[in-house]
């Protein structure tokens, strides 16, 4: 536990420390972190810091005590918990913050801190925690507050509360895979005697026994493991299309059928080893391709963004109820930083609503009593009282979701190999037919052998394998580069796009972040704190930039007087002391204009002009080069915000690309629709609720996020903002996928030709078949995996 003396970083979260907050000679960046450390330390949980360097999660500010009040609601508890008696409650929270073994260490020993917790088990894969606690000793609210305090605030939303679907898929698939593997390998073993003895095992009865054991072993593969393949083939046929699984299912049936016939009639040993092998490799492929990011949610509903609880005033008594029980006419209280759950009318208080999340509009709007406030807006400043005028489900923002595009599924595994398989099957069947004719003519006795052999050898399993393994590997590589795709089909969607639409706020720019420089005579800690507090009172975007996180323990008392001149500036005073923030004109009273290109906030403390903050919206690094890199595509920029940044944008993207400002979510959606109307295949990049419609409408909707596990709207892929500049490489990589698959198609067709040439001559001995099948499959797998990795490397996606 040594901290380097050179650069002071927080012992808890590793952030740089601006001032000296110490405990036990350890450095902390803020009181929050320090408090967590002290808590762990007094409960002997400092092993937390031994497992991993600076594992902690920075504690952002204090917690409004009543933030989790709604959790006291009975029905809410019932809804969230999976098992509920008066002595024990089991509950599963999703904790996106889980990131290292230290997290597990801390979370699984919570009962050391809070005896009310009976046991807590984390699921690292799904970033979940299973807690069972004694409701007599600790309330759900207290539990959640504890989690939030140590830095793991549960992601509780209405979806979670309505119970997640159980993913039993994996278990079933893995079991099927295991069974297939077991039977396949043992059948192999039992088949070797046949081959090695050149079919001449000394004791015929022993040979008999072997082939019957083999038969027995193959049954579970046929009936259990291969079920998935048959199902998919059958589904295809019912929809009148022959998908890739159809010929495979056919081959499997043939392989098993013929082998059973041979074994039972004693005419041969069959080749159940190949038959089971096919199934096994198919399943391996599927397993490999089904890389799912359990921790991520690709289809969040708007509900996820809304608060679960809200404080309602009933006959002057405030109580906390779940939003779902909110009725028209209810009086509700919305405090600082809280979201308005339903369209409502402002009754009293100065509302200052920030719609950026809903519309992308940066500037907060002032609302006078009597005006409408739309759901999804966030109140900045003191508490306000409203009356609900629409059910939450009817409010403006949610209308977006009544759009039918949210009901239709997209990018389900409609791989481009499926259409191909139609022709493939046609060719296959005709070859089989010709072979049949030929032998019927020459030597009918060999007819069955030849035909079945054709159907088995020509099985397109290697074709399917190539696709599944290529895309499986690509999914992994994308993932390693912080682009998480919903499924393999998305790769093809990305490969096909012609137009790219960017959202501005939070996509090209970084929300919340702004580069702030103070020019003038430096401020003391106390003065900085005063400025911060003053700024907190205002909802102006520039003020927000100044109102950074709680950073100092210095007590500066409470603001007595505060006045703001909208668009000009503000004045806050502590008795005699005062702080004036605002435009050059407002602060200095001079007509002087701006001193720089960037936005400025001038500062006057106690009637002494001290200088000004230079504030600039921060664009993600590498946007310019990216735009250049994406020349072959048609770029578009949409923004819910005003056009104040237009100049900068054109500087980055060039003047000739279409840019639209102050666009509503619905308009964004329509814009994408129009493009598609002109036969464009669109990729939409956006964050936030306001892009959800467009993301869903686009052929490939990519949600940008600063923390892949945090809120992201429904989409096909989630991209970490830090890698946005690599977009070009990503698209090229996706395109290469097709090429690789096609190449391996050719390879496998060669195999098939070799195999067929044997088969049509009815000359295919079980041994050759047995060797050919795994050999071809494995070589294909190696080929595609190596290719895709190589390409990734060339595109600079190979690292780590």
């Amino acid at each position, binding site marked *: *536990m040594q901290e380097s003396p050179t650069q002071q970083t927080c012992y808890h979260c590793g952030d740089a420390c601006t001032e000296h907050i110490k405990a036990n000679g350890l450095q902390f960046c803020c009181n929050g972190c320090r408090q967590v450390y002290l808590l762990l*330390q007094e*409960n*002997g*949980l*400092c*092993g937390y810091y*031994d*497992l991993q360097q600076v594992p902690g999660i920075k504690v952002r500010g204090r917690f409004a005590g009543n933030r989790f009040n709604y959790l006291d609601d009975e029905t809410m508890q019932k809804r969230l918990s999976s098992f509920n008696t008066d002595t024990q409650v089991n509950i599963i929270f999703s904790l996106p913050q889980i990131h290292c*073994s230290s997290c*597990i*260490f801390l979370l*699984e*020993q919570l009962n*050391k801190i809070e005896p009310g917790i009976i046991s807590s*088990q*984390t*699921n*690292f*894969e*799904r970033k979940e925690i299973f807690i069972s606690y004694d409701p007599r000793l600790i309330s759900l609210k207290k539990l959640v507050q504890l989690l939030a305090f140590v830095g793991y605030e549960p992601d509780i939303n209405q979806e979670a509360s309505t119970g997640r679907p159980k993913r039993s898929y*994996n*278990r079933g698939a*893995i*079991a099927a895979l*295991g*069974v297939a593997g*077991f039977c396949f390998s*043992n059948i192999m073993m*039992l088949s070797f005697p046949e081959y090695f003895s050149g079919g001449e095992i*000394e*004791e015929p009865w*022993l040979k008999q*026994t*072997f082939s019957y*054991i083999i038969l027995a072993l193959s049954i579970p593969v046929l009936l259990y493991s291969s079920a998935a393949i048959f199902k998919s083939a059958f589904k295809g046929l019912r929809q009148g299309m022959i998908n890739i699984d159809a010929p495979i299912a056919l081959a499997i049936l043939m392989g098993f059928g013929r082998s059973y016939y041979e074994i039972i009639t004693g005419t041969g040993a069959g080749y159940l080893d190949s038959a089971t092998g096919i199934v096994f490799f198919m399943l391996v492929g599927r397993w490999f391709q089904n890389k799912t990011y359990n921790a991520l949610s690709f289809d969040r509903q708007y509900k996820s963004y809304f608060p679960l609880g809200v404080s309602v005033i009933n006959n002057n008594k405030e109580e906390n109820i779940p939003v779902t029980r909110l009725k028209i006419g209810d009086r509700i209280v919305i405090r600082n930083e809280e979201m308005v759950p339903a369209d409502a009318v402002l009754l009293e208080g100065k509302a200052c609503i920030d719609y950026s999340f809903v519309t992308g509009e940066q500037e907060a709007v002032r609302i006078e009593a009597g005006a409408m406030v739309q759901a999804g807006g966030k109140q900045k400043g003191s508490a306000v009282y409203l009356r609900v005028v629409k059910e939450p489900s009817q409010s403006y923002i949610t209308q977006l979701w009544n759009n039918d595009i949210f009901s239709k599924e997209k990018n389900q595994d409609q791989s481009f190999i499926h259409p191909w398989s139609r022709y493939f099957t046609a060719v296959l069947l005709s070859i089989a037919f010709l072979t049949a004719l030929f032998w019927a003519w020459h030597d009918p006795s060999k007819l069955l052998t030849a035909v079945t052999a054709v159907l088995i050898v020509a099985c397109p399993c290697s074709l399917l394998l190539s696709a599944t393994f290529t895309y499986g590997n690509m999914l992994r590589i994308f993932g390693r580069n912080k682009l998480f795709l919903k499924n393999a089909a998305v790769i093809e969607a990305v490969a096909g796009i012609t137009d790219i639409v960017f959202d501005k706020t939070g996509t090209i720019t970084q929300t919340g972040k702004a580069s702030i420089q103070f020019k003038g005579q430096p401020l003391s800690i106390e003065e900085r704190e005063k400025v911060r507090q003053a700024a907190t009172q205002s909802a102006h975007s520039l003020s927000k930039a100044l109102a950074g996180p709680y950073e100092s323990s210095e007590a500066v008392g409470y603001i007595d007087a505060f006045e703001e001149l909208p668009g000009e500036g503000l004045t806050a005073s502590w008795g005699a002391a005062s702080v004036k923030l605002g435009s050059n004109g407002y602060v200095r009273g001079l007509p002087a204009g701006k001193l720089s290109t960037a936005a400025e906030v001038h500062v006057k403390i106690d009637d002494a002009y001290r200088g000004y903050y230079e504030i600039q919206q921060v664009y993600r690094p590498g946007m310019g080069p990216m735009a250049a890199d994406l020349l072959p595509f048609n770029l578009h920029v949409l923004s819910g915000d005003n056009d104040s940044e237009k100049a900068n944008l054109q500087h980055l993207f060039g003047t000739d690309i279409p840019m639209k400002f102050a666009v509503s979510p619905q308009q964004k959606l329509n814009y994408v629709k129009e493009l598609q109307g002109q036969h464009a295949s669109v990729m939409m990049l956006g964050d936030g609720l306001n892009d959800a419609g467009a993301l869903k409408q686009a052929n490939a909707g990519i949600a940008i996020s600063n923390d892949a596990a945090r809120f992201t709207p429904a989409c096909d892929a989630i991209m970490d903002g830090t890698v946005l500049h690599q977009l070009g490489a990503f698209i090229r990589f996706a395109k290469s996928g097709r090429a690789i698959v096609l190449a391996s198609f050719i390879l496998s067709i060669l195999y098939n030709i070799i195999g067929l040439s044997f088969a049509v001559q009815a000359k295919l001995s079980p041994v050759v078949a047995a060797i050919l099948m795994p050999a071809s499959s494995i070589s294909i797998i190696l080929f595609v995996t190596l290719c895709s990795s190589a390409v990734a490397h060339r595109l600079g996606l190979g690292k780590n």
Partner: protein
Amino acid sequence: MSAFFILVGISMMVAGSFLAAFIWSVSSGQYDDDYTASVRMLWDNPPAGAKKNDK
């Protein structure tokens, strides 16, 4: 080689029982999370009163 008969038979019996074990472990969710367990085994839980984990 009647010994083969016995050996193969018994081998299959054993292997079979392990297959059953495999299916049980998968279906009972043993492998739903294939990371946490490897970390969890690192610390034994002494009673809260007893010696603390910190150095």
